[in-house]
């Protein structure tokens, strides 16, 4: 009973941790707009957490500058499992207008598994909200997968996905489900 309750709750109480990896601040204020009375993300249980240790969903905005990349990855690795990674805006997906710059390391999916990518420059709050709600479903799936793995005898759950091999820079498609504006 408690296992089901926990699985259900996982989707109903996603806490966000927002990382700005060199964003122009456009996506950031749209994320804040999601929390305002007009859109009110709290009705789905969303809450901005102060520390990555509390978070379920990591929201990344910005084109991953050279300076911010290791910090972003470190903060992501500090988020406990099960976790979801959502990128906001085109920058973390492709580099957007900064693509090709010597100091821009986008896309994020080269380094970690991205669950949901919300495209747009900047995406509308509705789109962000849609992406976040989809992420909650993925969280629930991950929890179920973990339970399944535990049943099959893996004590620590499925292998963490963060240590996947880093593919070559060129041939990385933007992974995850894209949400069109």
């Amino acid at each position, binding site marked *: 009973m*408690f296992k089901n309750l926990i699985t259900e709750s996982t989707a109903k109480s996603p806490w966000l941790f927002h*990382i700005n990896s060199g964003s122009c601040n456009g996506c950031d204020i749209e994320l804040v707009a999601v929390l305002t009375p007009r859109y009110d993300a709290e009705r789905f249980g969303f809450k901005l957490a102060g*520390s*990555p*240790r509390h978070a379920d969903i990591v929201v990344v905005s910005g084109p991953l500058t050279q300076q*911010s990349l290791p*910090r*972003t*990855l*470190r*903060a992501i*690795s*500090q988020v*406990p499992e099960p976790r979801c990674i959502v990128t906001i805006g085109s920058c973390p997906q492709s580099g957007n207008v900064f693509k090709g710059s010597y100091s821009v390391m986008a896309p994020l999916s080269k380094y970690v598994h991205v669950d949901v990518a919300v495209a747009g420059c900047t995406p509308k709050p509705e789109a962000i909200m849609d992406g976040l709600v989809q992420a909650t479903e993925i969280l629930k799936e991950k929890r179920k997968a973990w339970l399944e793995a535990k049943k099959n005898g893996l*004590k*620590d759950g499925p292998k*963490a996905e*963060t*240590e996947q091999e880093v593919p070559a820079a060129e041939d990385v498609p933007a992974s995850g489900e894209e949400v069109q504006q």
Partner: protein
Amino acid sequence: MTNLLSYTHFPVYSIMVLFLGAFLVVIAGKSKALRHIFAICAVTASLACLIALIKPVMIDGEVIAYWMGAREPAGGYAIGIALEVDALSLFFGLLIATAVFVSCCYSITYMRFDENVSQYYTLFLMLSGGVIGLVLSGDLFNMFIMVEILTFAAVALTAFRNKAHGALEAAFKYLVVGCIGSTCILAGTIMLYAQARTLNFAQLSAFIPGNFNTSTIIAFALLYIGFSTKAFIVPFHPLAADAHGAAPASISVLISGVLTKSGIYGIIRLTYFLFQSMALGKMQFLLVFIGSVSMFVCVTMALAQHDFKRLLAFHSISQIGYVLTACGLCTALGISAGLYHAMNHTLFKGLLFLAAGAVLQQTGTTDLNKLGGLSKRMPHTTVLFLIGAFSISGIPPFNGFASKWMVYQATYQKAVESGNIGFLFATIIALITSVLTLASFVKVSQSVFFGQLPEEYKDVKEVPFGMRFAMGIFAVLCIVTGLFRELVTHYLTEPAARAVFDVGKYINSMLGDGYASAVMGANAPVRTEVVFDMAGTWQPIHWLLLLCILLLAITLVALLGRYDTVSENKAALAEGKFDIFFGGEKSVPSQVGGGDLFWGFKHNWRHYFSFMHDLHSGIVNDYALWAVVALALAMLYMLIVL
């Protein structure tokens, strides 16, 4: 000659073995084992003698009057040297002997790297013998002699590690002000002798209360100030900080747990027995006022410290403030509470000083801004320290709470009964002081034992078993006296409180039945029953039972869930996952130091703190001046009041 093994001889044995031990240690010379055996045997024998006295004195309520060489009083004058042990003396004697015993156990491992250890043990035993002699003595001049012995032994021990920074300076300050105190006691003794032509305590107690004149009152003031310097109460508190900071930890235990108690003992004897003036509201006011000021001033001074041992030193005086306040109430509950707290103070403060000594030995510093994270390297010391810290901050169910709770009840009941709103402020100050004490021990635990471990202390080890054992004794006593409050009050503090209110018996057992009423006539002290009601209830064991059941239940539920499947840094997992979150930066050792931890509080009190900072100049001339001014004020006050 009576049987030498009769318990009437035990008081003198308990003093004698310590002084004997002091000489034997010197004879033992370079033999380390022999020296330790002598020292341990002496303190154990002394403790055993006093424990054997619990039955006759505490339970049967006997008062042992012992004349050295059987020189009993002749012609109405007590010329011989006398020891007199009532429940009050024995209570303090037991405290002191326990602290001395534990401190001696600790010293064996703690002092193993020092030079001239045989001198250390000699002085140590002289100091212990001096204090036990002081509390068991039935004679004012002997008290003075013991005060001198203990003061000089304490000064020498303060400067024992004289290569350490500040040790000589601290010893010098202590010497100067300590001598002023001793001189006051001597002068007071002389003036009383000139008036009463006797030095025997019981005889003086019978003579003085009916014969107040200017010289006896001035003698009172002199003696009061003399014992105040021994108890380090305001305005003598700065000395304590220096002395504790510089002395080895095992000696700090004695200075804080033993010397201050001897001062408190002196003040109780002086006010309740010699002058029998505590029925006066103005005398109660004096003690409660000084006690409350000591409490508050010293706890705020402690908050401003960034050295572990100096911080403990100020807390020591703050706790003595509780004792003095409660003892100054002149109610049965007050005395019981005060003595209870005195006992607890010896236990928890001893424990804390020993923990500080352990930290000092393993890391070489007691600076709160440099230390951190030692709980991972010294887990046992941390647990023992936490027991001491919770006890002193009055967290239930440890002993500090039991006695503080009684102090609050006592002060508030006194306020209600006497209708004097001043005592109400004592209650409020006591309660606030308690939470400030908690604050500064949170500061110590954060900046010494928790937080992050600095690089240079990566290889620190746990202290040897001998030191942990000594701390363990104190820790167990802290828990036991906290849980069994009723037993402690019944067997220890109530008999002592009864003794305080039974001056007539004290006089009569020394000088023969009927002496008090013959000399004092209608003014002869009347025995008052020690009965008190509590306005509230506190059952530590019941509470603990509830807590344990709940802990068990929650832990079970938690373990059935996922609480046990935690991720630890076992293998090299994802980089940075087990680092401290630092805004994404690579985790660097960063410790929030203890220097100015509670600035939100200090900011609002900044004028007070800067005033205090300027006042405590650290110059010995100033402190000597304070002593003189305090003496003048005390004389003036007592001349007006009495």
